[in-house]
């Protein structure tokens, strides 16, 4: 193996999900979208620090709970208060 190849994966990293861990497990509060209220504006997508909200083709939004840290920014910025922060484990 050449020196350049040896550096890969040790000194040189490549993009991947979960490089900082399965961060969904950090969550205390879970953002739950009330789709009947949601206007598909995309504001939550724009501000989600974790890039876990997808703003889909039809402009609806979807949260990837594998990595959502439950910060609550999406709920705070939603103009129509369509996101509720629900304590994990509480239905």
């Amino acid at each position, binding site marked *: 193996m050449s*020196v350049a190849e040896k*550096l890969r994966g*040790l*000194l040189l*990293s490549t993009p991947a999900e979960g490089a900082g861990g399965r961060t969904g497990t950090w969550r205390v509060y879970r953002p739950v979208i009330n789709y009947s209220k949601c206007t598909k504006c995309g504001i939550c997508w724009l501000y989600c620090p974790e890039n876990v909200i997808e703003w889909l083709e039809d402009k609806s939004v979807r949260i990837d709970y594998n990595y959502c840290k439950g910060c609550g920014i999406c709920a705070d910025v939603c103009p129509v208060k369509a996101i509720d922060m629900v304590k994990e484990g509480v239905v």
Partner: protein
Amino acid sequence: MVGQVSLAKQVRKVLVGDHAVAEAVKLAKVNVISAYPITPQTLIVERISEMIERGELKADYVRVESEFAALATVYGAAAGGARAFTATSSHGLFYMYEMLWWAAASRVPLVMAVVTRVIGPPWNIHDEHTDLLAIRDSGWIIGMAQNVQEAFDMTLTAFKISEDERVLLPVAVGLDGFILSHTAEPLDIPAQEDVDAWLPPRNPKIPYTIEPGGEAITMGNLPRNDVYHAILKKYMDESMEAAKKVIADVYNEYGKLTGRNYGPLTECYRCSDAKYIAISMGAWSGDILNAVERLRNEGYPIGLLRIRYIRPFPEEDITGWINGAKGVIIFDRDYSAGMGGVLASEISGFIPSNTSFEGVLAGIGGFDVSADEFTAIMREFVDRVEREGLVRIRKYWYIPKIER
């Protein structure tokens, strides 16, 4: 591939050491140069600036605000795929300290000239090797020239060594402040076309390039496991070992190109039948060699082992040459506080316990030591060993009497 022997195509010039280094940088067609003024290095970058202004060298000269920035800049250039060069001395080298380690562990090729100089206080611009030797743990390959020709040759070969796929470590080329940097000596300079054939432009992809549109790699984020760090250091160690062979190969090729042959890691003069070995590094080796010749004429069986590269540490050369010797005397123009001479400290571990040994601290602060003085110091050592048997002196401060 090696070009044909082209002794005929070399030109002889008379240059000071700093200008010889600049000449090597020009011939290596370096892309990015950055440095900051400090005596006695300054002549290098002044000359390079002139070369660029005159269009003799097509390169970016980045006029930075500090040595830290100079090394950071050439490091960035190297990570961006360029062939890059910087130069400094003493305080400037220490101002780079953090970057020295980062650059080496990033495994990008780089070349730096270190024009050796005392570290203050008091302020003192004269020659000492402490600055260069203080970076020896950082991951740089470290050479030290004996004369202007060698300063030139070491600089030119440094690019080839640093960029070698088996090495990929930065190379520091030491030359003694004033004694070489500001002293004019004749030297032979190979023709550009021969150098071009031997040293093609750097391949920017090796070991990696960080550039927009390039592969999405991140250099230097945290390791998932600290053991990664250990593995990387071990790889560095393997490359240092590999560098011994690469240095030999490169000088072999270079010898064919220029007719000049070197050690490559060390050179030993009058050693084959020597019972006593003196060890030194840098320009004063010339004076020590004169002293050795005199002692030979007096019947003393002594030789001189000159260290060309202290990193990678030339362990095999040193143990090979001192094996069976009755006594070893090491000259340090440097001081590791609380320990002694750096070369003596590093080498003493390889000197068998039944071999006599003396570490001499001389020339500290830059004072000249003449061939007469070297003769006397070495004669005294040999006489004492012959008289008393085993002698082990880890540090002997050679401080001449002066008027105060």
